[in-house]
């Protein structure tokens, strides 16, 4: 089980942070642009950003250190989560990290998407699961590991918000946060 990608999305589907954690990602520079197909990212994700200005659009959408395939899956998971929350299929229960834990929102190929919601933000992660297991104990410990991961990312996020230069409604550009998340992901992936 390994963490492939993480997205942090705000209340109105505005993405604050999207990142890949695959081994290829280490070879490329943090905020570089990955190879694209014919369709530019700007056109592909046009309506999610709702920005009229083309230049700004291109700049924002090409700035995610996350390849298109993962971005696509993250966005789809985000849609599912949104639907689930809107229809009230999930209610917070328990306390602490348990209360924010939503669980699996989507499955596709090898990837499972898990979500964790807090007051202003939703965290969506793509987990690559090689071995599917039905053993409830394994699933439970699996869930607990993920819950801890999300709780730690949440802590990093609150620390980031305490920086007076950080705006709660804008992209997360803090190097400290980025490095912290990469470190957590590496620990989780056992690297």
């Amino acid at each position: 089980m390994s963490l492939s990608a993480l997205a942090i999305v705000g209340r109105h589907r505005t993405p604050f942070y999207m990142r890949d954690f695959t081994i290829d990602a280490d070879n490329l520079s943090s905020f570089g642009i990955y190879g694209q197909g014919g369709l530019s990212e700007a056109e592909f994700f046009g309506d999610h950003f709702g920005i009229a200005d083309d230049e700004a659009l291109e700049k924002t959408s090409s700035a995610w250190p996350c390849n298109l395939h993962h971005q696509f899956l993250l966005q789809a998971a985000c849609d599912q989560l949104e639907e689930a929350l809107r229809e009230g299929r999930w209610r917070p229960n328990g306390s602490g990290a348990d209360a924010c834990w939503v669980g699996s929102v989507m499955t596709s190929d090898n990837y499972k998407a898990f979500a964790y919601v807090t007051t202003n933000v939703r965290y969506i992660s793509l987990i690559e699961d090689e071995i599917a297991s039905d053993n409830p104990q394994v699933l439970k410990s699996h869930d607990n590991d993920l819950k801890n991961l999300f709780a730690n990312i949440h802590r990093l996020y609150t620390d980031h918000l305490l920086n007076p230069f950080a705006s709660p409604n804008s992209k997360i550009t803090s190097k400290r946060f980025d490095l912290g998340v990469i470190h957590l992901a590496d620990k989780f992936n056992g690297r």
Partner: protein
Amino acid sequence: MSSKSQAAQAGQALWAKMPKANAELFALTYGSLVTELVRDYEDPIEVNAQLDRIGYSIGVRCVDEFLSKADVAGMGLTTQCQNLRDTAEVVAKMGFKMFLGIQAEVGAFSQDQRCFSIYLQDNPLSTFVELPEDDPSGGEDLRRLKYSNLYCGVIRGALEQVNLKVDCNIVRDTLKGDELNEIRVELKEVLADGAGDDYKEE
């Protein structure tokens, strides 16, 4: 030196008696102040100047409280600072300790004994702060911002009230990657006690 440990001890005693405030709230308040200034003035040099002015007005008021409390702690008017070295010790060991609870060191005295440095290991004002990277869209370069410039103003204001005109500058800043914060203080002149030109003896 006896005055050094005396100052440190007095500082500790003073800090124990002062009312305390929440450090996070303090840091967040200062952070909002700085970001508002940045929003208003845009130019980081101008923001530094404003922070210095704000610090100045704080220093001018703090020094009276300091001197009145210091009297009780045994460093009163009878034990005056004989030279700049003593002044430096008092500012760092008692002043910073009393108001902020942090341990500051002095050092780097110049040849002519007119300059010194104050070293701060941790800076309560800059908890959680991370200076934003250069804005690629051509925004102002916040690397020129001296986030803790308030301290410079405070020292300048406080020392001016005791007739020492000084210039203060932040030369090393942990927010910019240095290991500690260093404030360089230079004595410009010792002002004479006077009522000013407007007042003329009959």
